[in-house]
């Protein structure tokens, strides 16, 4: 993979759509259809778009992995071709969208809808963004700070426009970004950021089991280590009566799913996923629960071969 090609592709997609994979913001907010949410309010539910992007990430990285196998010439050529098509106005992402199944796409919207419904049931009023922007984390991870700055300055403005004083987040990366990273790039970002699990627990929400009754818990790195959200998922699962099995490496010492390097090193990333999944499997249940869309997608890819099932926590409880 050539970093120059990666950088240009990301920049061009960002210019067109403010999204690294070219996923439209109007698509990202589709989870809210039919929920009758307001567009302004004191509290905003901001998803950061990672769940919505999962089907695209899967198609894209599946493609990258195959290309990687064909050698550097082909994979760099493909990246260049992708850019060329982009520049001709052909939207690769919408072509990719056809490849991904409707059922797959619906699955990730429904996780977000369940979070929204749980919050509603817990008595929380919140708004959403009609055109929901991506969280920008990939740009930061890759060291593309200028693009990240541009992205989060706009994001901060959009959040302000909703009138929100408090943002509820649904994934570890967006939570970390809004709690810490954005402050290095946006001077006056003084919105309170809180993870949805904290909101649910604070409101005394009692979930019900809807998936497996016993799961191995996988702490996402950015949730456990970087945001300190460790006891919350356990509390919710236990309240619902789900038996939680702890792997050898958990909590602050949890093992990474490999997801963060899947765009640059797809094969290595999948080996890391497998290694972590073997650790999880050894903890006594073939059902895993995760609380991060990146973990979800990276494990999902290997799940069938390993004979395990991977659930988002909101597919285990509701």
């Amino acid at each position: 993979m050539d970093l120059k090609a990666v950088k240009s592709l990301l920049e061009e997609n960002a210019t067109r759509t403010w999204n690294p994979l070219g996923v439209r913001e109007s698509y990202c907010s589709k989870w809210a259809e039919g929920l009758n949410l307001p567009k302004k309010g004191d509290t905003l539910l901001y998803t950061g778009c990672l769940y919505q992007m999962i089907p695209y990430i899967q198609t894209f990285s599946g493609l990258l992995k195959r290309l990687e196998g064909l050698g550097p010439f082909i994979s760099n050529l493909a990246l260049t071709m992708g850019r060329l098509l982009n520049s001709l106005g052909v939207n690769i992402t919408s072509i990719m969208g056809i490849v991904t199944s409707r059922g797959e796409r619906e699955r990730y919207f429904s996780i977000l809808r369940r979070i929204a419904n749980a919050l509603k049931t817990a008595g929380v009023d919140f708004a959403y963004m009609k055109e929901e922007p991506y969280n920008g984390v990939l740009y930061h991870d890759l060291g593309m700070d200028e693009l990240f700055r541009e992205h989060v300055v706009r994001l901060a403005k959009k959040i302000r426009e909703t009138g929100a004083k408090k943002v509820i987040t649904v994934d570890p990366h967006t939570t970390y970004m809004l709690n810490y990273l954005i402050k290095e790039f946006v001077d006056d970002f003084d919105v309170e950021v809180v993870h949805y699990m904290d909101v649910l627990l604070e409101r005394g929400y009692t979930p019900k089991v809807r998936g497996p009754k016993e799961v191995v818990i996988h702490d996402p790195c950015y949730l456990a280590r970087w945001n300190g959200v460790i006891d919350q998922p356990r509390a919710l699962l236990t309240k619902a009566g789900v038996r939680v099995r702890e792997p050898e490496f958990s909590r602050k010492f949890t093992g990474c799913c490999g997801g963060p390097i899947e765009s640059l090193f797809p094969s290595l990333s999948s080996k890391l996923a497998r290694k972590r999944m073997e650790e999880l499997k050894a903890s006594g249940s073939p059902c895993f629960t995760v609380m991060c869309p990146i973990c979800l997608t990276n494990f999902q890819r290997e799940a069938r071969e390993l004979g395990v099932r991977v659930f988002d926590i909101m597919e285990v409880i509701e």
Partner: protein
Amino acid sequence: MTDLTEVSQLLNKVSEDPVLRTALDRAIASYWNKRKQVMERYSYIKELADEVRRIKEWSIDHMEELLGRAIEAVEAKGGRAYVAETAEEARKIIGKLVGTGKVVTKAKSMTTEELKLREFLIERGNEVYETDLGEFLVQFLGPKPMHFISPSIHLTREKVAEFLKDFMGVEVDKDDVEGMVALVRKFLRDKYFSADVGISGANAFAADEGAVFLIENESNIRLSISLPPKYIAVVGMEKVVPTMSDAWKVVEVISRYGGYKVTSYINTVMGPARRGRGDIGPEEYHVIFLDNGRREASKDPILKQTLYCLRCGACQYLCPVFGVVGGYWAGLESAYSGGIGVMWEYVTGDKETATQHAFVCLLCGRCIEACPMRINQPEVLREIRRRLMEKI
């Protein structure tokens, strides 16, 4: 420079090597168990680690001043001190001190690996022996030390038995680890007595007394630096701390986080043997303080974290990427390994290679939990990426 294909091909290839995987799995499981025991038994250790972090921060901010004090102390005790600005300069100084046609025994030392010192001295017609068992294996089996304290982490006992059988020409039982250790010991025993020069690195260096601190488990360091008449210590400038008391603290933290309840031997050397007093030990004490990028890094607000590294290897054991590719991460040309290895390579070696390898990091942060100094490797590695991405 921007093409990551080679990095990716190297790491993909080794991640499929079953021998490497078995070796790493065994080593990591064993470390994790030992670590849990150590953390339970020495509950004060985290506090001590925090104190050492403050000592290191102060020391790196006062590197020049400490260096001055250290040189003075070494010379006051009759030793000789040198400052090498680059690896080449260091090799030149050491090359002169050793000469040619000599027998050299070496303690395991990452800083001498950074200098490719063994290869250099051999090329100049010397006989050089690594005396640490793991490093001894690496000397003959390669490809490089794969971990700070466990250089042969990539080798299984089966592989080692195979090698020793050929090397020593005797039958070797792959399950008799003690027996294999004894074989190498016996081979090295003669070398210590015939050696002209002993060379070591340093785990810490106390500026007040000009003292090198070295920890070990095999007593090989003791022998390699005491028996030969000439002793050379190669000390990275980041190793210097103000006092003996500070150095003891550093040493304790290194050994505990390295997974040892206690290391078997702790050595300090603070001067040559005094003539006419019947002292046993080398009559010449040479200390080479190595810069090789360290001074520059000490002034860089983000990179300077690299210099807090005690090289205990905890982060390597617990890094998910390391668990699959071992010391191949950072590249075969680098003396260093893993994410922290990429940082060290960036500071002391080839910035281009280091930059490419910086993109492998997951930014997952388990290294921060593992590290007694809580070095933020994701922050540093991301910064290295940033420096490239803004240019291309």
